[in-house]
């Protein structure tokens, strides 16, 4: 298999190194605390999902506007400047809660191909969202005047977010 694909699988990407890192992490006192206090993981997962709800809804509204399916009474630039800041606000909470979940159960996530796909999709969609916002700031008519590019960007972003949520749920089934 190609190197770029191998790193997403369980066996690939220096799994020995990651395995020993997981072993070390799961024996730290903070990880042991998370493992023994029963309510930590469900509570942190709940906060994580509530932030996903904010991000997913904001991104769905923005992407559907880029595609031309929702909120068409208002310009694209208004949708971009309204919804993107919520994503930048929720992402730090998602990363913090995500890290707590990883510390609590390192091998469940770090050795999980679904988790790696989720992180790959996330990295791509963050770059896309950054450019959607930046181009909109530079020229408020940028997305308005490029209907096809806007629609393709909206579809790509929406699919990536659906992929992130789906991969996130499937982590539990690997």
């Amino acid at each position, binding site marked *: 298999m190609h190197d770029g694909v191998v790193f997403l699988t369980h066996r690939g990407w220096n799994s020995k190194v990651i395995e020993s890192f997981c072993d070390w992490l799961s024996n730290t006192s903070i990880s042991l605390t998370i493992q023994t206090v*029963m309510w930590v*993981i*469900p*509570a942190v*997962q*709940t906060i994580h*999902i*509530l932030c*996903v*709800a*904010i*991000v*997913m*809804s*904001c991104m*769905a*509204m923005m992407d559907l506007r880029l595609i031309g399916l*929702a*909120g068409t*009474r208002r310009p694209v630039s208004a949708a971009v400047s*309204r919804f993107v800041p919520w994503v930048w606000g929720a992402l730090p909470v998602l990363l913090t809660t995500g890290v707590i979940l990883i510390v609590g159960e390192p091998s469940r996530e770090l050795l999980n191909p679904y988790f790696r796909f989720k992180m790959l999709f996330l990295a791509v969609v963050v770059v896309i969202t950054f450019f959607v916002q930046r181009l909109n700031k530079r020229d408020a008519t940028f997305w308005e005047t490029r209907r096809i590019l806007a629609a393709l960007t909206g579809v790509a972003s929406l699919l990536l977010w*659906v992929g992130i*949520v*789906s991969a996130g*749920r*499937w982590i*539990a*089934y690997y």
Partner: protein
Amino acid sequence: MVIPEFCAWLENTAVGSSIRQSTWLFPTIETIHVLATVIVVGSVTMLDLRLLNIAYRDRSIREVHEDVLPWTWTSFAVAAIAGSLLFSSSATKYYHNVPFRIKMVLLLLVGINAAFFERGTYPRMANSDRESRIPRAAKIAGAVGIVFWIGVVACGRWIGFTK
């Protein structure tokens, strides 16, 4: 009792037993349930935050209501159908599950709150296009909605950690 018998019948239907026996059906339906749920909660929260005068302040409540709620209702239908399918896979187990029962009660309360707002508060305030003063009843409906939905999500997640 009728409900336990209904649960026993439901989980032995072709649908219920296929979902229970399959390795991929349950996670797939659950993924659809989660995707629909995050859209329901996120979109209704947009309206709730508008009612609390925290977000969307440059637009009328009527406009936010018209833009957001169709997506909420469509997603809710999907979430409810997917949720019913998940329930059918082990109906008896869920019926006896405490977080599941709390979740159903909270959903009922969410529904009462929404009906109260849609039938009572909203029709009386929607006539003025620019609501400079949001009635207290609307603010309460928004706050109650946010709190109950957080409870629904928490109970939903909690179900996964119980037997």
